[in-house]
């Protein structure tokens, strides 16, 4: 049976559930779980003060329910197990996660999967800025793993990411893949300004159609049918990323950012054109 955490209070203060993760709570007696310290505003409080607790995490699964919009750091630093969130979450979901899976039925705030090193995150709704990004002062964003977002995403997704895959079913904001070192970002809706700015390597697929606002430091290579995309499509479909319009024909390829290393690539739908 999973450990069920149902939010009971109605406070608007931010709540940080650092350490409330399957690999940490596994084997912990219920009373001890209830006393587990979390941050509520500027106070440290026991978990049972904010959440009704049922079940146990022996099968390495935690379910979150209730109003979770101001509950931050769900699944942060998680290394194994499964977290299922029924609703919307706050910031730093899956930040620095190294394994396991997280599923969210609603939206999530900023910094989803920031600096994650492995694992799988699936969000049915939309997310904020800086998905899979590096924290200020860090050199690298996510270095492995998969982040799937059914809705839209904010700005600077995949900032300085080193490896891994981010797929956005809807639109994304400005500067997708800013300073990207490697990895894959796929966006199936419209895209904000200047995707791939300062990217060194890596792949950005902008499959929403329509004009693409690229920087002038990208160079067009031509139209091709990339084989690797079929493998990614098959893998993402296998992991439940459905309902998007995968491109079936040839795609336009641009290389850049030539102000950086210039070995990155941006693929767009045929005939999309530059903004």
């Amino acid at each position, binding site marked *: 049976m999973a450990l069920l955490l149902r939010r009971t209070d109605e406070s608007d203060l931010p709540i940080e559930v650092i350490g409330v993760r399957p690999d940490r709570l596994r084997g912990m007696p219920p009373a001890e779980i209830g006393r587990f310290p979390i941050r509520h505003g500027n106070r440290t409080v026991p978990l049972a003060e904010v959440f009704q607790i049922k079940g146990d995490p022996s099968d390495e699964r935690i379910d979150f329910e209730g109003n979770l919009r101001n509950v931050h750091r769900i699944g942060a630093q998680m290394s194994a197990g499964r977290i299922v969130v029924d609703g919307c979450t706050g910031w730093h979901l899956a930040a620095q996660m190294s394994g396991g899976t997280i599923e969210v039925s609603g939206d999530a705030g900023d910094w989803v999967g920031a600096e994650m090193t492995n694992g799988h995150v699936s969000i049915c709704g939309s997310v904020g800025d800086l998905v899979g990004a590096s924290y200020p002062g860090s050199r690298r964003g996510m270095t492995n793993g998969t982040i799937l977002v059914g809705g839209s995403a904010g700005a600077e997704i995949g900032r300085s990411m080193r490896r891994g895959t981010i797929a956005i079913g809807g639109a994304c904001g400005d500067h997708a893949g800013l300073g990207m070192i490697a990895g894959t970002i796929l966006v199936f809706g419209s895209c904000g300004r200047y995707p791939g700015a300062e990217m060194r390597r890596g792949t950005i697929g902008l499959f929403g159609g329509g004009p693409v606002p690229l920087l002038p430091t990208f160079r067009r290579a031509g139209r091709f049918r990339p084989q690797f995309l*079929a493998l990614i499509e098959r*893998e993402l479909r296998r992991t439940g990323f459905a309902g998007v319009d995968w491109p079936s024909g040839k795609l336009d390829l641009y290389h850049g950012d030539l102000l950086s290393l210039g*070995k990155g690539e941006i693929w767009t739908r045929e005939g999309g054109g530059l903004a």
Partner: protein
Amino acid sequence: MIPIVVDTFAEAFPMTAARAILTADTPAWAETAARTMSGYATSVIACDAEAALERILDPAETPDGRPGCSVLVFAFSRDALEKSLTNRVGQCVMTCPTSACYNGLPVAEKSIVVGGRLRYFGDGWQISKWIGERRYWRIPVMDGEFLCEEAFGTVKGVAGGNLIVMGNDPSRTLAATESAVQAIRARCRDVILPFPGGIARSGSKVGSKYRALRASTNTAFAPMLRGVVTTDLPAEATCAYEIVIDGLTMEAVERATAVGVQTAAGQPGVLGVTAGNYGGNLGPFHIRLLDVLDRYGEPV
């Protein structure tokens, strides 16, 4: 005359094996890649590996959804297999228009690096992609890019399984052997028949009167030497053809042997079906023809 299945055994030996899945835009190019890659790979007596087309794959069976073929490659060690497979994929698959090459076995500790070596052909413009738990290399080439998986899984397979079809009329004996080859290819998985058309007409024995040679003609099955050497041919036999079977598992080789023996024995002009062995001195696996017929043969 009812053909006789001789109560003897085929002598097989362990070899390291890998499976390559080759795809291309059309079935014809996929098969071209597979046949080119498995050229000059009939026997490790003088080739770096034994390799052949295993089967044609539907697009639904391939990693990228294109037409494809699977090729099995066998060599004496993982190092030898890695070298052979890398050379063959590099020279015969990467050069083939529209092709891509994927690993067809689970990757475990005992894997070999193929795409990870060929990537240097990209001269710094190669791109790595991790998709799921597997790594792929995208190497820029003249029609786009060549996609090749980094690592290939290996297994300890069984090579040298064989059967010998003997008859009194060369054309009918050959037709019977061809029927056996077709039956094995149609009904058996995880095996290849590495010789031309699946058939060897110059079966060999271990050793030679010439010290430099590891193998020489199998005099016991050479009909023109009857009377001057000890022969294993029936009195009326004027020719013999051999089918060599390499497989990923012992069971796969045994099943293929049973299918081949049963099919050949039912053909006109066949006097007997036997197997090549070397008194137990060549390999540790003994595949007894009558035993595998009992276990895997279909009721007549």
